[in-house]
């Protein structure tokens, strides 16, 4: 945007303005302080019922959004957090349904490639055609990803049910995660080439699933 004035070399002769030489701001002796003293102080913030309420709304909104499935946790960050803290914090997590996007509104390519997971009891839908090898690989990956992602309420139904058993194994999986990243890279290339096929084969209709995040 607009160029800032600080230290700008003027395109004109400053002296011709009469602001040259002696009338320039006092020449500095020695380095200037990092934070020069300022003449004016900020005006006090407005305070009142409206302001207090909006402050509360802001903080509540931030808190809620952090606990919603739309807040995607960084898997690698998890290791830093003490487990016991997490367990208690989990109590505060929104007990919420999984987030199931309406795939009519999203590009189909954004559906998670988790064939099995998409199948919910009682929902009629066809599966995406993925080569068996591909599918298992992806599945494994997602499983592990999801586990590492502990403390995060967005999980598929199967995942939630499995949870109690998962917690003990958590530590090991975190260590494994590094390797996984590399695998992911390979997977990315593979699926990149596979993908065109996916889309050609899987027409709109058989992708009308209920894939859940």
């Amino acid at each position, binding site marked *: 945007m607009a160029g*800032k004035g*600080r230290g700008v070399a003027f395109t004109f002769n400053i002296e011709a303005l009469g602001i040259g030489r002696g009338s320039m701001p006092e020449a500095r002796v020695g380095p200037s302080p*990092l*934070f*020069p003293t*300022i003449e*004016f*102080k*900020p*005006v*006090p*913030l*407005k305070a009142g019922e409206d302001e207090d309420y909006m402050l509360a709304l802001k903080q509540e909104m931030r808190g809620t959004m952090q606990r919603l499935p739309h807040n995607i946790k960084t898997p690698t960050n998890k290791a830093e957090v003490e487990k016991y803290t997490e367990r208690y914090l989990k109590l505060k997590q929104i007990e919420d349904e999984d987030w199931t996007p309406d795939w009519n509104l999203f590009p189909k390519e954004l559906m998670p490639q988790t064939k099995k997971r998409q199948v919910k009891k009682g929902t009629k839908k066809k599966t995406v055609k993925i080569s068996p090898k591909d599918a298992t690989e992806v599945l494994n990956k997602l499983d592990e990803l999801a586990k590492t992602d502990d403390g995060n309420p967005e999980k598929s139904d199967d995942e939630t049910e499995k949870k109690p058993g998962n917690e003990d194994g958590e530590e090991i999986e975190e260590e494994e995660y590094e390797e996984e990243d590399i695998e992911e890279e390979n997977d990315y290339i593979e699926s990149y080439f596979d993908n065109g096929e996916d889309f050609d084969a899987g027409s709109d209709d058989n992708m009308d699933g209920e894939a859940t995040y």
Partner: protein
Amino acid sequence: MPHLEPQQRAGAINKLLSLVSLRTWKMKGSDNQEKLVYQIIEDAGNKGIWSRDIRFKSNLPLTEINKILKNLESKKLIKAVKSVAASKKKVYMLYNLQPDRSVTGGAWYSDQDFESEFVEVLNQQCFKFLQSKADAARDSQQSPMVQRNSSFATSHEVWKYICELGISKVDLSMDDIETILNTLIYDGKVEMTVIAAKEGTVGSVDGQMKLFRGVNPVLQPTGLVKTPCGLCPVFDDCHEGGEISPSSCVYMSEWLEF
């Protein structure tokens, strides 16, 4: 005047002297150069002339001019006046002339120094007058139109009020007061309307009259200036991770503690 008798000559001279001034007599001893410089200064009128310009016009060396100027000054034929247009610059004019406003700066200058405090005091007093008028109008409970109209003051009214206050050592003209009222407009505190006035109405000029009134600001100070960043002198140098950053900012710390 060689054909005249000395007596006649003396009589004529005496007559002239009484008519014109003393200057011819005083000039008696001066040479042509002095006359030339004098002439140039006289032509400059009450705006005066700078010594360097005298040099250009007379083509005399500066040292010579300085000598002449000194001489003329000592004879009280001319005087040096400091000009407000440029500090440390003296202009010369005939001794008996009243310097022009452009040289003295008018009421706002005392000895070529701009009396800033004087201006600000007048600015505040004028505003106080207009504000009290607006307050009285509001409290009058009259119809909205009457309220508005009675909140206005003419420049003449303001002028009269200031004169009666007696805070000014010098005589202020109505123009002077309007200059002050204009600064209040630029302060965003006063509005001006021009209305047609009947010929001869007090304070009207060319059938027009200026009306002033105090007004309230439309906005409270805006949100930005309620933060230290809104006033920060090193705002553009600030970035996270830098020497000046939001985390290390002392203005921010001070503000948070307050």
